[in-house]
């Protein structure tokens, strides 16, 4: 399905009662089978944007529309969370089955689907482990399997790898690309990491610091399937440099604010 985000704004009040504009007139689309990364510094409202798209937070103005054909019995979105958000009292398999339970699938189908997505994410043999018995990388695989298992029209990912160490992150990105090649799902992926955004996405939506506005939508002219070799590609480096140029000034002013 295609997601249209139109003139989306979000204003809320902070603890002192001051108005804070988190998002201002954000507008872009995610096409069917497209991988879009939303890139921005911390505090640019990326997570707010994702929550609005997921229907977990009301927008102050503007709207989000899903268009296109949807397979019956599948939800519009499913989210992979930064801090994994696994249920500690559920085993890996039971976590993956959570969304399937909410969809009302019968037990046998839940088990079959959970198995398929646990296998796809490399969790075979770990089904009966509780989250605290798994490494960070394994936990996020459960998070990804849980979101994929409900077969959402659009997969939402909120900095899914930022809580992982650098090596695990690199491996997980490769795995995510491999999975995406198989499922070809629309993905809205939020990150503050330029390399990550350019490496994964078809287009990168660059947001400004608060208030979050779209500065630029950068198409990434790299082939698919993406492999790590692309990270040395001149087109990759050019895209990273260009985006860094766009947000460097803002990052610098943020640094100054934090000092002062």
């Amino acid at each position, binding site marked *: 399905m295609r997601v249209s985000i139109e003139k989306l704004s979000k204003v809320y009040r902070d603890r002192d009662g001051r108005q804070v504009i988190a998002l201002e007139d954000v507008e872009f689309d995610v096409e069917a089978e497209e991988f879009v990364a939303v890139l921005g510094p911390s505090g640019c409202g990326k997570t707010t944007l994702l929550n609005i798209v997921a229907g977990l937070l009301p927008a102050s103005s503007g709207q989000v529309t899903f268009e296109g054909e949807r397979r019956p019995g599948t939800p519009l979105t499913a989210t992979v969370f930064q801090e994994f958000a696994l249920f500690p009292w559920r085993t890996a398999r039971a976590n993956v089955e959570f969304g399937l339970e909410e969809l009302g699938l019968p037990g046998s189908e839940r088990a079959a689907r959970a198995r398929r997505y646990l296998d796809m994410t490399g969790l075979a043999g770990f089904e009966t482990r*509780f989250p605290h*018995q798994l490494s960070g990388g394994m936990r996020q695989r459960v998070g990804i399997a849980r979101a994929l298992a409900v077969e959402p029209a659009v997969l939402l990912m909120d900095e899914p790898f930022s809580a992982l160490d650098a090596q695990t992150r690199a491996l997980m990105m490769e795995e995510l690309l491999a999975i995406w090649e198989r499922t070809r799902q629309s993905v809205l992926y939020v990150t503050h990491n330029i390399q990550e955004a350019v490496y994964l996405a078809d287009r990168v939506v660059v947001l400004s610091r608060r208030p979050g506005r779209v500065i630029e939508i950068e198409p990434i002219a790299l082939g698919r399937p993406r492999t790590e070799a692309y990270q040395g590609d001149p087109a990759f480096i050019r895209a990273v440099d260009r985006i860094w140029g766009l947000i460097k000034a803002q990052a610098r002013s943020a640094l100054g604010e934090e000092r002062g």
Partner: protein
Amino acid sequence: MAVERLTVIDRAAFLRRREHRAVRVAALLGLLALWELATRIGWVPALFLPSPLGVIGELAGMASSGQLFVHLAASLRRLFLGLAVGAGAGISAGVAVGFFSLAEAVGQPLIAATFPIPKIALLPLLILWLGIGEASKVTVIALGVFFPMAINTYTGVRQADPLLIRAAVSFGAGRADVIRKVVIPSALPMVFAGLRLAAGTALLLLVAAEMIGAESGIGFLVLQAGNLMETTKLMVGIAVLSLLGVASHWALSGLERLAIPWKHT
């Protein structure tokens, strides 16, 4: 400067604590032996402090005559009923007050206002209302159990991770499923902490209730033995009560391991 060669020694050695297992056992056995000795050689008259072996003998006698089990059964019945009713009501109230803002607005001031009442002071009133039979005894235990259960459950529910609740909602969970699949499992460790507190309170109130107008129960046994100066029998009652305390602690630990496997594996 002088040339030196120094090997590092462990300067924190005196901070490390040893377990002294043998000493633990010896201390306990030593105390019992000393006690036995003190009564044998007549330092203290057996009327004031019967010997440990004497207490064990009396316990065995009361067990074989069946007298002990009559009292134990009566006490256990009151204890279980009071715990079940109080815990059921307390957990339900805690979940409701913790989750629904309207229930919180109604329940929180009510609980805060009634919580400080020493429950034992209500016993005469409860006897007036419910009679001197089982109902007043079970009710006072249930009341004593209700508050720690309600307050702990409430705290556990409020501590449920908002991220997990949001995750559940994002996968389509409604209110009932959020409570059943996220809020209650989150609160379980606090619920068990409440149960431990409540078990102690329940035992205390049980004995108190059985000392007022009962014809059976361990509390009755202790009071009656005291009135008749049967100190050995009295000590049997106390020993059984402390065993009940230990047993309930073990039972709750076992139950907790079963109910919260994600904390123990």
